[in-house]
């Protein structure tokens, strides 16, 4: 591992640790010394990577958005049908919620609930562009191929992502009676039926 790789690895581990602490103790209650302590590094060393907690918060949202975006991008590159692609995207999302619940948790509880932290340099969609772009590509391809009904972006996006976010939220609250993977088929079909071209 060379220097820059080492640095990138360190940067990533700081974000990963912060995510876990945010999820455990809450965003506001978690301090930079808490994060440094958990990683066995000095506070000064932390500042070499992130100049402030707000900046860290923004970088984390970019990092999670890109991680999600990269997985959806693989789906977008295939020739699968719209219905298959929906199934795959739902699977990606729920798998992430299962394997890295802190990431989705962060998005729902921190990013969406603390907009003031993200007002500067993270306006609108700037920090979630990695994810949004792939969702746009997915919609664009499926409308172009005649599978999904053409409509406003947000009416479609809200139906798709609001639904998934809601399910993950219920899972987090411990309300879901079954494992979240068991919902993938029905939810995918619901989304497809809602968005497909009406005969």
């Amino acid at each position, binding site marked *: 591992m060379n220097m820059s790789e080492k640095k990138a690895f360190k940067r990533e581990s700081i974000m990963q640790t912060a995510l876990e602490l945010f999820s455990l103790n809450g965003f506001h209650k978690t301090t930079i010394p808490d994060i440094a302590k958990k990683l066995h590094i000095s506070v000064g060393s932390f500042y070499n990577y992130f100049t402030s907690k707000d900046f860290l918060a923004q970088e984390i949202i970019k990092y999670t958005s890109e991680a999600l975006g990269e997985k959806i991008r693989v789906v977008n590159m295939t020739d699968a049908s719209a219905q298959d692609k929906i199934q795959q995207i739902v699977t990606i999302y729920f798998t992430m919620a299962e394997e890295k619940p802190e990431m989705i948790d962060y998005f729902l509880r921190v990013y969406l609930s603390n907009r003031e932290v993200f007002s500067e340099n993270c*306006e*609108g*969609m*700037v920090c979630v*562009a*990695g994810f*949004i*772009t792939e969702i*746009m*590509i997915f*919609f*664009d391809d499926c*409308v*172009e191929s005649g599978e*999904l009904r*053409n*409509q*406003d*972006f*947000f009416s*479609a*996006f809200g139906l798709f992502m609001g639904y998934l976010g809601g399910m993950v939220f219920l899972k987090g609250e411990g309300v879901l009676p079954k494992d979240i993977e068991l919902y993938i088929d029905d939810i995918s079909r619901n989304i497809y039926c809602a968005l497909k071209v009406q005969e």
Partner: protein
Amino acid sequence: MQNKPYKPKLLWLQSITCNGNTHSFLNHPDLFSILENFELIHHPTLDSEYTMADVLSKNVPCDILILEGSVIENGFKKAGVEVSSLIHAYAGKAKHIISVGTCATFGGIFKQNNPEEISGLCFDLEEKTQHYEKYASKLISLPGCPVHPRWLSFVLLMLAKNKSIDIDSLHRPKELYGYTVHNGCTRNEYFEWKIDTKNFGHKEGCLFYEQGCQGPYTRGSCNKILWNDTSSKTRVGTPCFGCTEPNFPQQSLFTTKTNMGIPAKIPLGISKRAYLTLTGVTKSFKIKRFSKDLLEYD
């Protein structure tokens, strides 16, 4: 006594047309000094050496053929003579063929009434016609509905001065069609920041997102070499309709085709992913200067 320099013999022939290219060229402010370089064999409106009846004999001289209008092999006669036979007679004889306008070049608007039989001389939309091979070596395409007068004068003067013209695969001069209509548009700043115009009739805002503007993927230098030496469609708030393109005119010309709000066609040569990434970012910024009108009158 010195011999006068040889002037190429120019023949302007009309096929299925609205005469728009003829009238467009008459707007050229240097028209007569340009024509000085040629012997005008025949022209639809200007005084010329030979009458239409002479032209119909297929015997008048022709070095440069300017063809205006789309072509049908059978069924359009002038005084009993098939116009296509005239075109072939003079196209065969000419050293250069200039197809002026989208009709003569690709088939254009009038093709739509009889798509099977009407086309451009050498292209049928983007496909080569059976005549392509015969004329390719001397063909210059000047699509546009109509042709821009200065585009035509550029080609004519280059030919008069025996200079070679660099052309692309559709035989369009690169100097004229290497640009997109978007290039030089006065609304570029709004395009950069993805700010669409609120409605027709505003100086402010870009016409690409809602109003159907095809400027970013239409080839032509309309915003570099202005129309009537003064303006262009997009400068007066009218969307570009892609009139230089092989598929002109398409449907729903005043509405941008979108898929879930995403433009179905994006700027020339840019991947959709790159475009959307950039769009998502720029759209997120609310820039105060652009939220105001450029000027306010009391």
